[in-house]
């Protein structure tokens, strides 16, 4: 039985977080495993969870009537999946699909959300960290948007 | 460029008949003698048969965007400065065929052609222009590859230079260290003297060939007062330059001020007409074009002058890198006065003033540089890349 506390405390995302908050987060966490092609969450579903991918690969898909499924991002080992649980109205904007067998830690976002409302310091710690992730994803998305390969070279 | 101490050069005196004879000697040696001549209200360079083809008794008035010829009150052969053309039109022609090919079963066959290359004698070349040729020598012949087109035409040039005794309204060779006195690169360099009723030339001999040719006129050694008079005239020209350019750390100054508001001000005036690049004696950019005859069985590859002021000069798939006039003007000026140092070890500008004279809106490169110097930043450390 792996020590969730050990795994989470060593993860770069939770680095330097205060001991009592870490305990709280561990309390909301559990291990989960997805088989290849499992849908982890669907566009439109209520977003109450988020995941730390331990091992595997997850695709973020959008569906288009004529093109079918379009993958716009993939996440792998160590990456955080999902922040819609933090942002009203708390719905997933994409499908998440396991590309291959994937093991992850799932965290109870709804529970953490309520705790953040009461303890703003906890809220700030989490938002600080998510802000970094959102920024990274935004920069990456902008580059994808530029369609740099579409021009020349 | 080798700098020779002029004091060790031999100085002789010749008169106008001797000079005419020198031109004849050069022609007899199969040189194509090129010199300044009058063409439609401007002094340009073309083949001359003798002294009578020179713009005798004429002088030029230069200002920003202004050029007029005026009569002198003497009959000087060389009483002007530089017109709209430079000697690069002979060494790297405005249009020259590189090679031809004809369609064949192996795709194409290159056609063997022996181009007739003329041996040029440049008569009456000014120090600024001679420096410009030496700059082009470095560009076309000084690197790992050498350019055939330029090399063939530069080979066996005879240089009969002239030291300016009057400076033009847009001249600033003194600022650039390129004149008015010819220091190197010539076979013969003469200073024209009209002193009371005497009309003669004080000639510095630069090479064995120059000596050989001038010896045929049996020149006398220059007397010290004649020599001093020549030096005095040239020094007068040096002290009456129409423009000044402070060249102190000019490279770093321009590189450190790529976003100076002056660039936008210039761009608002600049028509990107490319006149400056065409009259500039050191601008060397060219393009290469393909053309075929009507049947398509012969293709020619031609080299043609180009200018960084055109929009498609910097075109790569997708668009032009330098879309704005501002970026193109900045490219030209920073290449000429800054990047050239990194590329070739000297400034690209010889202070001939043509770009100022022939700009239709009178943009003055010295004024731009001086403005940036007055109000721009000059960091203490050397500036390697622009910012």
């Amino acid at each position, binding site marked *: 039985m792996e020590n969730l506390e050990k795994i989470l405390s060593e993860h770069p995302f939770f680095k330097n977080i205060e001991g009592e908050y870490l305990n709280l987060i561990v309390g909301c966490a559990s291990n989960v495993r997805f088989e290849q092609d499992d849908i982890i969450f669907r566009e439109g579903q209520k977003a109450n969870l988020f995941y730390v991918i331990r091992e595997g690969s997850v*695709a973020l898909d959008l569906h*288009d009537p004529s093109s*079918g*499924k*379009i*993958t*716009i*991002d*993939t996440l792998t080992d160590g990456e955080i999946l999902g922040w819609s649980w933090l942002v009203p109205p708390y719905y997933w904007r994409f499908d998440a699909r396991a590309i*291959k067998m994937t093991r992850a830690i799932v965290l109870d976002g709804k529970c953490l959300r309520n705790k953040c409302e009461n303890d703003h310091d906890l809220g700030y710690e989490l938002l600080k960290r998510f802000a970094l992730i959102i920024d990274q994803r935004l920069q*990456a998305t902008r*580059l*994808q948007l530029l*369609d*740099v*390969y579409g021009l*020349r*070279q | 460029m080798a700098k*020779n101490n002029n004091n*060790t*050069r*031999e100085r002789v005196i010749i008169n106008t008949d001797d000079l005419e004879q020198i031109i004849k000697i050069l022609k007899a040696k199969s040189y194509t003698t090129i010199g300044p001549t009058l063409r439609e209200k401007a002094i340009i360079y073309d083949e001359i048969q003798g002294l009578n083809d020179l713009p005798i008794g004429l002088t030029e008035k230069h200002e920003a965007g202004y050029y007029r010829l005026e009569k002198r009150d003497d009959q000087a052969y060389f009483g002007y400065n530089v017109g709209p053309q430079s000697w690069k039109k002979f060494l790297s022609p405005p249009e020259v065929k*590189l*090679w031809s090919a004809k*369609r064949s079963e*192996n795709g*194409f066959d290159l056609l063997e052609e022996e181009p007739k290359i003329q041996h040029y004698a440049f008569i009456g070349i000014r120090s600024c222009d001679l420096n410009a040729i030496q700059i082009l*020598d470095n*560009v*076309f*012949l000084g690197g*790992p*590859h*050498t*350019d*055939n087109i330029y*090399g063939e035409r530069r080979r066996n040039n005879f240089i009969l230079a002239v030291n300016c005794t009057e400076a033009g309204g847009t001249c600033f060779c003194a600022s650039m260290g390129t004149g008015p006195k010819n220091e190197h690169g010539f076979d013969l360099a003469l200073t024209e003297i009209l002193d009371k009723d005497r009309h003669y030339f004080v000639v510095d001999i*630069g090479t064995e060939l120059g000596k050989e040719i001038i010896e045929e006129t049996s020149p006398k050694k220059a007397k010290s007062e004649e020599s001093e008079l020549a030096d005095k005239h040239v020094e007068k020209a040096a002290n009456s330059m129409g423009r000044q350019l402070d060249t102190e750390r000019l490279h770093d100054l321009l590189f450190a001020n*790529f976003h100076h508001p002056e660039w936008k001000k210039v761009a608002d005036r600049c028509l990107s007409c490319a006149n400056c690049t065409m009259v500039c004696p050191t601008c*060397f*950019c*060219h*393009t*290469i*074009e*393909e053309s075929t005859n009507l049947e398509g069985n012969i293709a020619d590859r031609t080299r043609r002058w*180009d200018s*960084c002021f055109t929009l498609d*000069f*910097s075109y*790569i*798939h997708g668009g032009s*890198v330098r879309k*704005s006039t*501002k970026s193109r003007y900045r490219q030209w000026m920073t290449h000429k006065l*800054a*990047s050239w140092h990194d*590329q070739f070890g000297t400034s690209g500008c010889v202070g001939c003033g043509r770009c100022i004279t022939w700009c239709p809106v009178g943009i003055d490169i010295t004024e731009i540089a001086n403005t940036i110097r007055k109000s721009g930043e000059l960091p203490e450390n050397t500036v390697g*890349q*622009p910012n």
Partner: protein
Amino acid sequence: MDYDNDIMTQTEPITDSMQPRRFRINNVSWETPETFTHELIPIDKGPSFTFLPGQFNMIYLYGVGEIPISISGDPDNTSRLFHTTRVVGSVTQRIQHLKPGDTLGIRGPYGNGWPVEKAEGKDVLIIAGGIGLAPLRPVLYHILHNRDQFGHVTLLYGTRSPDKILYFEELKEWISRFDLLDVRVTVDSASGNWRGHVGVVTKLLPKAMFEPDNTAAFVCGPEIMMRFVAMDLKKHKVPEHQVYLSMERNFKCGLGFCGHCQLGSYFICKDGPVFAYDKIKSYLSLKEV
């Protein structure tokens, strides 16, 4: 008596001409709907064609014109010349219709090539975007032929979508050789059966194995991509002088005489096209230079 001794009194022969060598197309293979690879064999007798990885040729199409194309083949194979070309302009639109047996003129090789000798003993990151993989492929061949001279070798390749992937079969083979190199491919977006990475190529960097200060990075792709890759490599503490980019501008002559390819003080055709990042860093963020 002091006589001048300038350049023009020397009697060295002047040898450079602008005439192309003729090559026959032996094979045309389409990598993607708009990119093809030519395999060329010389028509005229002469010294075999040798080149350094990263160099380019000026390719001449009779009656149409010339374009610069990177050499994309194996530098050890001197009997065949390979170019991978993308159809973008008037010349390439004509070249794409050529068939085996047709003739092209070649001038080159020009440029300075990737400094593979500087990568010896180091970990190597090869980061390619789009058609940028073509001028990097010769480096890969060179490294694979001299594998023990290099440390850990990683290829990161990003392109628009799965159908734009170059050298698909070869990549599959390289992916399988994880004893030799680590290959990761990503696309900007994918539909269909793609099970690989989706996202910008910089995202693959944290997964790569390399010791930052003992790493040489060779980067080639659209300029924006190279800029962001270089910044990311800096974030990962790879020294700026050990990151190399391949730059491109308008080439007409390839020899440094026509002036078109200038990037500030550099002539890309002879000072480059490969530059260490620290040497061109400020040019990359300047507009219209």
